[in-house]
């Protein structure tokens, strides 16, 4: 049989036996505890999605169905784990495989032909779905990280020309790069003379991130803003020394209070206590 005919033939046979295949699939998935927390409706939907994606690809030899599978999953917001999805496809593959074996009982050549057609297609389906799913998850994580970053790097105006930028949590080099642009744009808009970068909330730092921070300070200086650093933790200080990061020319203070004192001093202010009555 011609290639596309093989696909057509296989799928029509699979369709005829859909019920039985579904029962077998559900039973195997349940045996591995992969369908817990899913309603019967959701289980049916999941099976349909897996079955139809596979048959669609087998029928045509093209992979649009596989590509859109992950996207659909994300849109419908079905809370399936990676394991559930991949196992779902792998179990189906095994079931289809046995089905094909039975279909060609006694016809070794026919069986070989069909496997030659079926196997590469299914391999591709599996890898496309997996890669796509992972990309979706990564994109979700990135969105969450962006949200966290927005919350964790507010620029707080303490006084005219004194702004506080407290950094919290893990700062990787990707976020650090975004930080540079955000800080410099802010400076351009507000003309703030001093920014206090408080890193008391940062537990660890790597070379790239440290370099990005230094770059930010250098660029800010070129624009006319001084960035001082407060709250460097002992562990971070040690790392900086080990990495050979040079902080000459940069004002640092042990805590925020000292940083604020410095800032007021630089702007020409002095704090005087009101005489008590």
């Amino acid at each position, binding site marked *: 049989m011609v290639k596309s005919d093989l696909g057509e033939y296989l799928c029509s046979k699979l369709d005829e036996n859909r019920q039985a295949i579904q029962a077998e699939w559900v039973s195997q998935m349940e045996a591995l505890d992969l369908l817990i927390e899913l309603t019967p409706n959701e289980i049916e939907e999941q099976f349909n999605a897996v079955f139809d994606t596979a048959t669609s690809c087998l029928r045509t030899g093209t992979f649009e169905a596989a590509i859109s599978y992950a996207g659909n999953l994300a849109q419908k917001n079905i809370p399936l784990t990676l394991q559930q999805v991949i196992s779902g496809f792998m179990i189906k593959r095994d079931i289809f495989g046995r089905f094909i074996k039975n279909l060609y009982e006694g016809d070794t050549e026919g069986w070989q032909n069909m496997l030659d057609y079926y196997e590469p297609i299914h391999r591709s389906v599996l890898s496309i779905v997996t890669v796509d799913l992972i990309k979706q998850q990564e994109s979700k994580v990135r969105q969450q990280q962006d949200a966290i970053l927005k919350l964790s790097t507010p620029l707080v105006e303490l006084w005219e020309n004194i702004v506080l930028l407290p950094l919290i949590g893990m700062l990787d080099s990707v976020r650090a790069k975004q930080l540079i642009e955000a800080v410099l744009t802010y400076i351009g808009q507000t003309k*703030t003379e001093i920014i206090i970068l408080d890193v008391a909330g940062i537990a660890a730092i790597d070379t790239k991130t440290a370099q990005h921070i230094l770059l930010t300070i250098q*660029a*800010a200086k070129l624009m*006319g803003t001084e960035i001082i650093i407060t709250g460097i933790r002992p562990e971070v200080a040690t790392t900086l020394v080990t990495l050979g990061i040079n902080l000459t020319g940069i004002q640092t203070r042990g805590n925020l209070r000292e940083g604020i004192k410095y800032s007021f001093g630089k702007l020409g202010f002095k704090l005087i206590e009101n005489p008590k009555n």
Partner: protein
Amino acid sequence: MATESIIPILKLDNFLISSPQIAIHDRIAVQYKDALLQKIAETKSKGLILDISAIDVVDSFLVRVISDVASAANVMGCHTVLTGMSPAVAITLAEMDLQLKGVFTALDIGKSMKILQREEMRLRD
């Protein structure tokens, strides 16, 4: 006879201010430098404000021009303040690690004046 500068150099209080609106390519750069230094000498100005807010690309050549002006001005007792640098130019220069020595930087003209006035006070003490 003073070199006529294509780029205007104006007096602002005791200081000079110049705000190039055009790209400073090589031939203009020499004329501009000379004009600035001559004006400083003429007016015995203690400060020069260079406003580069209209310049969107600053390469190593321009950095050298600015540094040269600042160095020469310094010798004549005049401080130079660079103002109006855009965030994009600032990042680019920082990434190239180009040093801008002998030049103050300020966020706007008002702050530039403050710096120059402060420096003037310092000399008096």
